[in-house]
């Protein structure tokens, strides 16, 4: 036990865990935004990241400059996001969250299998930003540059998002739509506009996550980010799906806990990391099905 704790509090481990938490937090925001405004749980969010990853790999294989690769990634992810919104999200409006989860589950498999045909199971490699994976010395600890980049990027993105939501009129419209969609329309908020903006923002975040993830995991396969999406979805539901703040905290928490456990679990048990994490998920869902970070008991039915 003491070994576990000693490893857990090492700066190295903490930094990596916070870095992972930061990336998961961005994904959680992406999922939470779409849920808040469209009331839709997007299981296929990971495929957006996968598509972005493939775009980066495409550019990397051709030796294009990094900036071009990132731009391509952004374009591909945004296009796919908007297509999803039009073809899948809009017709599903009004269905129960469970139906939406299943439908987006199907879409996730659809996109995954298309990628499998297109790129094969071994995928492609995106190496342009590989130097960020190298460590830099902070005191007597070595922290990878990407960890710092991830944390800073996440902080900046979240800060910008907070500004957008709280200081602009479109942000106000989105918050109102998330609280009470029909009354928002009543006072003139444009349903299709706030939906599109939510999807777009969610897409931008997916693109950012794709860039950050490919530094640590340069091989992009059709199942890229699937495991992370499942974890983030679990984290979001655990944190509290109905509010953006609680969803983001849930995403961060599950990433952070995964990171700490991954490093601190003794080697005989480290392969059971998923069991520990998902076991915790079940435990928390039983204790607080409405969400850990929500005020009160949330709005989930218990029988």
């Amino acid at each position, binding site marked *: 036990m003491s070994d576990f704790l000693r490893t857990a509090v090492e700066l190295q481990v903490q930094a990596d865990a916070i870095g992972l938490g930061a990336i998961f937090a961005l994904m959680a925001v992406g999922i939470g935004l779409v849920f808040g405004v469209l009331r839709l749980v997007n299981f296929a969010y990971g495929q957006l990241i996968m598509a972005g990853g493939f775009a980066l790999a495409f550019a990397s294989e051709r030796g294009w400059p990094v900036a071009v690769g990132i731009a391509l990634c952004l374009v591909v992810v945004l296009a796919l996001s908007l297509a999803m919104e039009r073809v899948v999200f809009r017709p599903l409006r009004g269905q129960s969250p469970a139906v939406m989860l299943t439908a987006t589950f199907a879409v996730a498999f659809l996109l995954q299998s298309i990628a499998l045909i297109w790129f094969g199971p071994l995928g492609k490699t995106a190496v342009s930003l590989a130097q960020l994976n190298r460590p830099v010395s902070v005191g007597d600890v070595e922290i990878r540059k990407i960890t710092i980049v991830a944390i800073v990027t996440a902080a900046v993105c979240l800060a910008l998002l907070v500004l957008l939501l709280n200081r602009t009129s479109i942000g106000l419209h989105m918050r109102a739509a998330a609280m009470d969609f029909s009354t928002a329309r009543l006072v003139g908020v444009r349903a299709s506009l706030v939906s599109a903006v939510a999807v777009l923002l969610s897409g931008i975040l997916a693109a950012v996550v794709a860039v950050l993830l490919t530094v640590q995991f340069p091989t992009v396969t059709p199942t890229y980010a699937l495991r992370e999406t499942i974890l983030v979805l679990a984290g979001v*539901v655990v944190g509290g799906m109905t509010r953006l703040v609680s969803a983001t905290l849930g995403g961060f928490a599950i990433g952070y806990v995964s990171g700490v456990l991954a490093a601190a679990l003794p080697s005989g048990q480290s392969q059971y990391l998923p069991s520990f994490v998902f076991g915790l998920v079940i435990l928390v869902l039983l204790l607080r099905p409405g969400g850990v970070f929500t005020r009160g008991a949330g709005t989930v039915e218990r029988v």
Partner: protein
Amino acid sequence: MRPRALLQLAGPIALVLGAVLVGLSVSRSTEIYVINALVSVAVVVALYVFVGNSGVLSFGHISFVAVGAWAAGVLSVPEQEKPAFMPFLFDFLRDTTVGNVPSLVIAGCVGGVFALLVGLPLMRLSGLAAGIATFAVLEITNNVLRYYEKIGPGLNTFSSVPETTDLEQAAIVALVVIVVAFAYQQSRFGRQLRATREDPAAARAVGVSIYRQRLVAFTLSGFLAGLAGGLYVHFLPINVDTVYLDLTFITLAMLVIGGATSLWGAVVGALSVSALDSVLANAENGLDVLGRTIEVPAGTRIVVVSALMALVLILRPSGLTGGRELSFDWLRRLRPAREAVE
């Protein structure tokens, strides 16, 4: 049994028998697809027993198939073959070998007990929380089966398992599962559970315990899924990834496409998607149609099935059958027209 109920049971049985007829009349290589379809029927009907009657989503049922397969597989492999790919087994597992039918029964029981244990805490949850929690069960089961080599082959593929799942056995098990599912849904338990799906508040008001009824259905469906897992392990060389996400997806797709709220829908979905899947699998290997060879890239099957599943959910969420059992209604609707003509 009343005629209406008789028809509701006869329909699915007839379909299964039809599949058997097809299986008897085709070549050995094609027969494999029919057997696979029948095993799918067993899994999908098991899934339906819980999801269809309770209205609660479960992503975790394949974990019951997995533990059933593991139990039947480990106990069926001849003793001398076990150390070859399962060197770390618990002693009692290594030293015990059972026959075919006992292994299936054990598979069902293991599935049922596991479902009971999982369901005790989980059946309090609904909606999204239930979906995530059952997904977590799937992940944990897969993780444990993958690395805990004392209870099975771990990462290795099951081999040397007697291939006893032939057309006859698959059909019998599929029929058993259908009859059990039917008996359940006609019973007081099934009807009470369906009441909670339709109107939870009203059901509670008349004293139905949602938790208890869900637990009963969950356990029963776990037993049936475990049974199907026993069939699987005696049919194909499976490993820990065969009973994981892909199978979860395809069985859920079959249920949704067929119609999640009826037994008829479950069977229709399982057989029709299996048929489509088989055709596409053949096409991936080069299919002869009218003298010309059609070949589609590997992986097209999942593209088509997932597109179909998404389309059904978007356009007709109640599935091909509308989620209803087979009934005489369409016959009755024809009759008045005929009388008018006279």
